[in-house]
């Protein structure tokens, strides 16, 4: 069954199991991309996630276009549409390849040295050009239609990687019943075993042995098997982030299923079996299409049946490349030459290669390559001790497989804060002392060779199970045949003087760039990295870091560890934002909190505003009213008749216990001891720094019980502060705090007819002024529903707040609303509430006050119980600056033009003219048009404001300064006749 797919508009056929890379290779396509800086033609370097060159865009239709995918990881499905990137007009003919000619000008860090003149030209002229040239793929420009999922998981042993070591570890770890998660970034388990054509393990061919092991694991109920799942990051306390790709390989995924899933795995023990990555050789022309890692060439040929070339040269400093040569030959590729830069090569693999008739030359290396869009010739030679080239030889080839040895994948180990240990023999870093509960196994800790890796994995798996409390009998060792032992070999350093030998392929960093950086004084590897950008490409330096380090160390004449190793940072391979965001989007981004009467309000055309997580009804337009008209009507109705307001979002805390009043005394500035049950008080709470933190009415229900309200946004903070003091400073107090915010819905009935609204509904309660004066609280019921009734006012009118259990709120609301309507009233929203309270000079915490305001500033000093020895924040009030002259104080403002509504935030100045640098006297905190008073009003915080009553200052507006008269902030009914009615 063949799969049809397209690349750059041309149609090709692939086979199931193909990656885009292998399928294109099988179709003879070798040019897959252009490099970042010089736009050099590039093919495949690798076969796995370390691939730096072959980055493509995959397009699945509207909104589902993904840039920068590695062709080596894109699974071919029927209908796949892929395109190359970073080229114009085409991959074959890219105009920006002209950069390559200018390469001498574009040396490392060139942009720090120029583009500085004239002043400002950088941002206007040069930068836009550079930005356009930079970047790889194109970002999607419409919303991603796909979903993403997330899962927390816990296990005894997490095994990362399913090559021989990982599989053996998982089987051993799970034998005694431990919870094991095995993950691998590839679509199938097996790692290197999938490309092994000679080894037999316990009598089975390698892929069959893999299938058998996976079968064993699948039969164990406590084992979770995750393919297409990359362990991308290590976080504190053995949390490992896994990114699982769920649908990208499917031709027609179910749109309701998630595309990817984030796993946040908490593992008691981790076995890292992440393998090793082959190291490229650094020589001129090493980036030509057709030059690839030897083992990648082998993988394409053996695993994918995709011949990476017809005639191959293998250049190596390690034995493993001989196996690549043998396998390539077995797959029908003519191997013209194995050039081993080492002076000796006499292990079993070189012997086998020689026996297979392959020409093997030692002491020989690649000097250069030739070819236009792919390699045609490798120029080989020997270099004597004086640096002279001898035996130069041109070898025709279409594939150059290179191997500079192997770099263990230490990314996760390093992220776990393990110590890296440098092994000079192999010129690699290896895992040293662990910092987390983990162990490495197999080639990621330098254990190579199939039987060694299997044994190492099994040992690691059983030890991990043991350390997480499980039976850990070591399984019998596997019997391995046909896997010739590959010697671990020392790389031969790159030559110092050479032209355009690439180290970081994607970012086009050459060995010359690295030498230039050291010449310019960048000696720390972090400096070199940042100056040259080596290792900063999307492959995160997997194939380049060690070569860069070796070159810099050699140049500086220092040992590699002294130059340093750049920090490994998550993620191991890039992870989509969507995976990390998970379910959080739209209504699941943040909870949308609605009150029990939200549905009613929505049905009555309320316009809502966000206040914290809450949706609050801002106003209720009728007909074609705009906000100002609706608010003005709502305000007038409250003042003239009655209004109904949903105040359910107010925070509520029940404070109970023998010491409740004492606790209140300590938390609030007010005095509470003498407040009688049945009465309320406006409470003010400070932070210990002396600034106003929150306000609200508290009613005393009983000697040992208070019902306290807080601001909507302040509720959690206030309760947390109370708990903090109660638990940690005054544990001797017998008090309990319970949030009842959501228990009680609050219906504010405000206006001269408020009592008339409620009287017939309140089940026999006396709510006349004598029985229920302003600032009182009673318990009873309303239309049969239990109620706490507060007589309080935030409007300056006769007012009640009806508290009923949330589940009954809508029914009670409807009953009350019917009465309100009957008496000529209406519902009102937060905007009218703001206007009404401003007319009375009542502050809103967070609007008039802002965390830097004292009670004195706000004219609320009267609330402080002077006789109290202490309360939270009291001591801070005595500090010099808290009472300094010149502090901003709350005042009212009347504009000279009564129709003028100042902008909130407008600045106040002494004079009308305000040249730059004019000192601000203060700012407008609240401002509203004429609603009921016949003129606009504003509240402001004004320097020495109370001393300026009657003076005129100026409010600065874009249209010009407006003279404003400073007045008392109480605009309406200063004697409180209305609210005491």
């Amino acid at each position, binding site marked *: 069954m063949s799969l049809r797919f397209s690349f750059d508009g041309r149609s090709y056929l692939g086979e199931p199991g193909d990656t885009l890379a292998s399928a294109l290779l099988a179709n003879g396509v070798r040019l897959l991309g252009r490099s970042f800086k010089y736009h050099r033609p590039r093919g495949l370097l690798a076969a796995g996630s370390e691939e730096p060159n072959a980055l493509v865009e995959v397009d699945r239709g509207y909104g589902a276009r993904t840039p920068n995918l590695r062709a080596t990881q894109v699974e071919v499905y029927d209908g796949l549409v892929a395109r190359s990137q970073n080229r114009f007009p085409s991959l074959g003919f890219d105009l920006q390849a002209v950069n390559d000619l200018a390469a001498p000008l574009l040396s490392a860090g060139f942009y720090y040295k120029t583009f500085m003149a004239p002043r400002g030209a950088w941002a206007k002229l040069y930068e836009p050009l550079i930005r356009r040239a930079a970047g790889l793929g194109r970002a999607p420009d419409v919303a991603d239609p796909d979903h993403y999922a997330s899962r927390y998981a816990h296990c005894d042993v997490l095994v990362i990687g399913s090559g021989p070591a990982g599989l053996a570890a998982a089987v051993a770890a799970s034998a005694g019943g431990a919870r094991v998660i095995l993950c691998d970034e590839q679509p199938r388990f097996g790692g290197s075993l999938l490309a092994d054509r000679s080894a037999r393990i316990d009598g089975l061919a390698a892929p069959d042995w893999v299938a058998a092991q996976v079968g064993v694991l699948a039969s164990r109920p406590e084992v979770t098997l995750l393919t297409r799942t990359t362990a991308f990051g290590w976080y*504190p306390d053995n*949390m490992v982030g896994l990114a699982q790709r769920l649908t990208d390989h499917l031709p027609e995924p179910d749109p309701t299923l998630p595309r990817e899933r984030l796993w946040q795995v908490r593992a008691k023990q981790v076995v890292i079996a992440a393998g090793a990555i082959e190291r490229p050789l650094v020589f001129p022309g090493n980036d030509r299409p057709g030059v690839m890692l030897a083992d990648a060439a082998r993988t394409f040929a053996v695993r994918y049946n995709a011949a990476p070339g017809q005639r191959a040269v293998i250049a190596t400093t390690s034995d493993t490349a001989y196996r690549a040569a043998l396998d390539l030959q077995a797959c029908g590729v003519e191997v013209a030459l194995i050039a081993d830069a080492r002076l000796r090569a006499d292990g079993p693999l070189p012997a086998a290669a020689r026996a297979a008739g392959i020409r093997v030359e030692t002491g020989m290396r690649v000097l250069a390559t030739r070819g236009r869009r792919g390699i045609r010739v490798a120029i080989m030679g020997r270099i004597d001790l004086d640096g002279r080239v001898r035996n130069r030889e041109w070898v025709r080839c279409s594939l150059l497989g290179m191997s500079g040895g192997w770099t263990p994948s230490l990314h996760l180990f390093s992220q776990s804060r393990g110590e890296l240990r440098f092994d000079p023999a192999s010129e690699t870093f290896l895992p040293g002392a662990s910092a987390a509960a983990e162990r490495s196994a197999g080639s990621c800790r330098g254990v190579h060779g199939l039987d060694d890796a299997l044994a190492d994995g099994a040992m690691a798996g059983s030890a991990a199970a043991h350390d997480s409390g499980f039976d850990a009998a070591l399984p019998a060792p596997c019997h391995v045949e046909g896997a010739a032992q590959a010697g671990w070999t020392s790389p031969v350093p790159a030559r110092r003087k050479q032209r355009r030998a690439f180290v970081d392929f994607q970012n086009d960093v050459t060995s010359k760039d690295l030498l230039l950086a050291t010449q310019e004084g960048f000696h720390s590897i972090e400096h070199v990295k940042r100056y040259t950008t080596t290792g900063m490409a999307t492959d995160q330096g997997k194939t380049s870091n060690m070569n860069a380090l070796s070159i810099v160390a050699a140049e500086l004449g220092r040992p590699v560890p002294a130059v340093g190793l750049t920090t490994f940072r998550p993620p191991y391979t890039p992870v989509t934002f969507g995976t990390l965001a998970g379910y959080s989007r739209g209504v699941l981004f943040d909870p949308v909190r609605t009150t029990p009467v939200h549905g009613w309000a929505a049905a009555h055309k309320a316009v809502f505003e966000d206040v914290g997580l809450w949706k609050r009804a801002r106003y209720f337009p009728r007909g074609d009213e705009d906000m100002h008209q609706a608010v003005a009507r709502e305000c007038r109705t409250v003042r003239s008749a009655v209004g109904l307001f949903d105040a359910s979002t107010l925070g509520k805390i029940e404070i109970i216990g023998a010491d409740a009043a004492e606790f209140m005394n300590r938390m609030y500035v007010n005095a509470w001891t003498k407040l009688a049950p049945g009465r309320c008080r406006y409470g003010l709470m400070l932070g210990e720094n002396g600034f106003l933190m929150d306000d609200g009415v508290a009613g005393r229900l009983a000697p040992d019980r208070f019902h306290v309200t807080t601001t909507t946004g302040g509720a959690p903070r206030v309760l*947390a502060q109370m708990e903090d003091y109660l638990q940690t*400073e005054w*544990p001797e107090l017998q008090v309990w705090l319970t949030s009842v915010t959501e228990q009680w819905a609050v219906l504010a009935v405000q206006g001269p007819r408020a009592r008339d609204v409620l009287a017939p509904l309140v089940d026999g309660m006396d709510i006349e002024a004598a029985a229920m004066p302003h600032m009182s609280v009673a318990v009873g019921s309303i239309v049969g529903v239990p109620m706490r009734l507060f007589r309080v006012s935030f409007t300056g009118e006769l007012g009640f707040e009806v508290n009923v259990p949330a589940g009954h709120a809508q029914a009670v609301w409807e009953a009350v609303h019917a009465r309100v309507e009957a008496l000529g009233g209406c519902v009102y929203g937060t905007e009218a509430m703001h206007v009404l309270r401003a007319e009375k000079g009542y502050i809103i915490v967070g609007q008039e006050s802002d965390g830097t305001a004292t009670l004195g500033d706000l004219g609320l000093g009267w609330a402080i119980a002077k006789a109290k020895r*202490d309360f939270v924040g*009291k*001591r801070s009030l*005595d500090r010099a600056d808290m009472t300094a002259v010149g502090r901003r104080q709350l005042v009212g403002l009347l504009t000279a033009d009564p129709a003028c509504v100042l902008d909130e935030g407008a600045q106040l100045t002494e004079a009308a003219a305000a040249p730059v640098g004019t000192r601000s006297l203060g700012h407008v905190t609240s401002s509203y048009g004429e609603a009921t008073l016949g003129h606009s009003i504003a509240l402001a915080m004004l320097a020495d404001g109370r001393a300026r009553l009657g003076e005129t200052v100026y409010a600065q507006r874009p249209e010009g300064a407006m003279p404003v008269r400073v007045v008392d902030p109480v605009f309406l009914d200063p004697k409180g006749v209305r609210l005491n009615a």
Partner: protein
Amino acid sequence: MLLIPCPICGIRPEAEFTYAGEAHIARPAEPASLDDHAWGEFLYARTNPKGDHAERWRHTHGCGRFFNAVRNTHTDRFITSYLAGTARPHGTPSAASPDAPAMRNDTEQWGQA
């Protein structure tokens, strides 16, 4: 996400907790008796050591209790945790360890004398 040992509920994920700053800074019994220097120190001065740090947490989305813990701020490993109102357990490296700044009594206040 750290794993945090709640002395009541056991080891639980950080998402359930609220960090509450340095531990053992008791609110003065008589704040009025402190001068501005001392009050400012109480409010704001923190040892902020790179090393073992006695600190407060609240198991907000768990048992709701504030408690104290000693954590190494270099490794983020918890060394111990204990109930609020109890002293830092013996045997935990104290703030006088070489990594940590000296204790309050031998330090200068920041205010200009």
